[in-house]
């Protein structure tokens, strides 16, 4: 009871948390409510006139084949980033966990991608794949005798490149956590497994991977947030949602409608939709994964 921790000061606890609560209300709750409200209106760019349109913004979004495509694109993109990202980083972390020469160097070299700004990461990949001057199309051209790898006209290729870039950028973060998780696997268990005659692969799946489940759960969640919410910068630099909306993930579509098309009603509706989707995904994930994760030995 608060009175027990602050004898004589009944309201002190509430006063102490008041600043944080005030900030959260002012900067999160109020804008959130305003945004939901705005999603029921359509307004001019300068906000000089607003018309109440009820659920029109939402109805238009779900009726729009472009928006539905954007949902699918986001799902494909997020799946790639999560599945490929986590698998590759786990493999790399596992290798990094071995006692090899130059381990320190490899660790730094593999982790620094996380420190790059999205603009830099996007530019690197954009230049690598630039159809006329990039190194990857050049190599492909040489190897296949003339095929021009042009990601500006090939939507699937563009989505692949953008997914690869986003995954690459997040590798560092995933590796750090996996490495920490691996190092926390108690040595005695691994020893016991070896003594019992278990091979490397079996040891990994039966002992190491389950012990990693808290880390995996956490990374699954973080990568999901990252791939749906935080990849805006990369897309903006590389493809601007193109070609032909092939890389127009939900959050990029929102940005375009809000700040370039100046359609605040539709953008607000989109942000609310993403919020709902993420909330559901988060709740499901935390329930299911937490139940399955092994937290205690």
């Amino acid at each position, binding site marked *: 009871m608060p009175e027990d921790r602050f004898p004589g000061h009944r309201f002190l606890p509430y006063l102490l948390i008041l600043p944080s609560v005030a900030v959260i209300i002012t900067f999160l709750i109020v804008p959130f409510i305003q945004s939901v409200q705005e999603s029921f209106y*359509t*307004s*001019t*760019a*300068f*906000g*000089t*006139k607003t*018309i109440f349109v009820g659920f029109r913004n939402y109805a238009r979004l779900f009726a729009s084949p472009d928006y539905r495509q954007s949902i699918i694109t986001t799902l494909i993109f997020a799946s790639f980033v999560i599945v490929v990202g986590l698998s590759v980083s786990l493999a790399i972390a596992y290798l990094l966990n071995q006692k090899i020469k130059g381990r320190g160097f490899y660790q730094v070299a593999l982790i620094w991608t996380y420190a790059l700004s999205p603009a830099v990461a996007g530019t690197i990949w954009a230049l690598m794949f*630039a*159809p*006329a*001057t990039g190194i990857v199309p050049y190599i492909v051209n040489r190897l296949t005798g003339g095929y*021009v790898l*042009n990601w*500006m*006209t*090939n*939507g699937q290729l563009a989505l692949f490149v953008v997914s690869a870039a986003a995954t690459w950028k997040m590798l560092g973060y995933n590796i750090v956590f996996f490495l920490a998780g691996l190092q926390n696997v108690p040595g005695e268990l691994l020893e016991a497994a070896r003594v019992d005659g278990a091979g490397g692969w079996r040891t990994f799946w039966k002992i190491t991977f389950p012990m990693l489940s808290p880390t995996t759960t956490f990374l699954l969640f973080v990568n999901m947030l990252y791939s749906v919410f935080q990849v805006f910068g990369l897309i903006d630099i590389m493809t*601007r949602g*193109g*070609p*032909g*909306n092939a890389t127009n993930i939900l959050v990029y579509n929102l940005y*375009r409608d809000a*700040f*370039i*098309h*100046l*359609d605040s009603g539709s953008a607000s509706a989109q942000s609310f939709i993403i919020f709902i989707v993420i909330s559901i995904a988060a709740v499901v994930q935390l329930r299911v994964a937490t139940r399955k994760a092994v937290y205690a030995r």
Partner: protein
Amino acid sequence: MKKLILVGLILTLAVSLTAGVAMADKVKITWWHAMSGSRLDVVKSIVESFNATHPNIELTAMFTGSYAETLTKFIAAYRTGTAPNLVQVYEVGTETMLDSGAIIPVYQIPGMLGETWDWGKYIIPIRNYYSKDGNLWSMPFNSSTAMLYYNKELFEKAGLDPNKPPTTWKEVEEYGKKLRDSGVQNVLSFGWPGWIFEQMFATHNQLFANNDNGRSGLATEVLFNGDFGQMVLETWTKLAKEGIFIYGGPEYSANTAFKSGQLAMLLQSTSSLAGIEKGSQFPVGTSFLPRFEGYPMGNSVIGGGSLWVTKGQSKEELRAVWEFLKYLGQTDIAIQWHKGTGYFPTMNSAVKALLDEGWFSKDQNFLTAFLQILSGRRDTAAVRGVRLGPFVEIREIERAAIEKAVSGVMTPKAALDEAAQKANQLLQDYAQLHK
């Protein structure tokens, strides 16, 4: 004696105070713009010389990001009362600004300040673009149009006359095949595909949207999915299939390929001329945009941006802003801007001065844009430029349609019909909001 000294001291104090007050009385105005790269340097130089020659005004020019970012910032700032005095908005934002209620039309400013100004000084196609009912609403500043750039060396290698670039799209295809067969990887590309698509309409005097391209009233329907538009897109799709046309990205990305000799022909903004010539190791040729045979003459359309004066300024600030706008209209400043950036000088007097000093004989490529725009029609709505409320979004819809058709995902007709349907929906929403 003491009294004299006292009076003297008081007078000195009074004078120094008033002098101090007079010096602190500089009118401060701000200007937000989107000119990056080398254009930023020219902006800085002009602003510096303006401030130096106008000691009672302090103009601060701020680079506020891309055109879209600048407009978004301006809207947010205007709504909170912190807008700059002057803002540069791209041409596709014209209708948005006209309907904003946030600006003072420039044609009213001289009258408000008790001055007169001759609007005939400005190059007519540019003036027409930003005029409503014959009056200029925003100040022309950075106007460009599109033209054909080509690599004379690659032309020679393919056995083509380097002084005979293609005039029609049929010739583009013919020459394109020769260039392709001579080993050129990618023959033709363009920047700003939506804009180039609109250019095709204007250069052939075809309307792009109803209500006189949105100039005699808010446009409620686009016309680009008609026969002409289909023909244009079918041509480009055919060229893509033949390996002649390669899609070059949404904005300036095709320039790199051209400068590095990977492209033989490029349709791009005239404002890229200086940069392209500097970055190319081969002789660069320029000419008018290719035409479709059998269609009427029109004119190439203005792109770029203009300057808008914010409402709600004090009279002193407005006077200072007007001084700057007049300064930009000086022949030598207009020439400085043109030479430094490749944008048109906005004043007719500048064209004469450039001619007199032999600028065009030094490098004929700078003449192409002028001749193209000054030799075309100026009287019909189709050549004056399209004006749409949700133009930014519609241009993206155009771009998506072009991408889909050229990459073979959809037929040109289907792509254009889909685009028209989306565009019409947006136009109707806009009209509803701005009744």
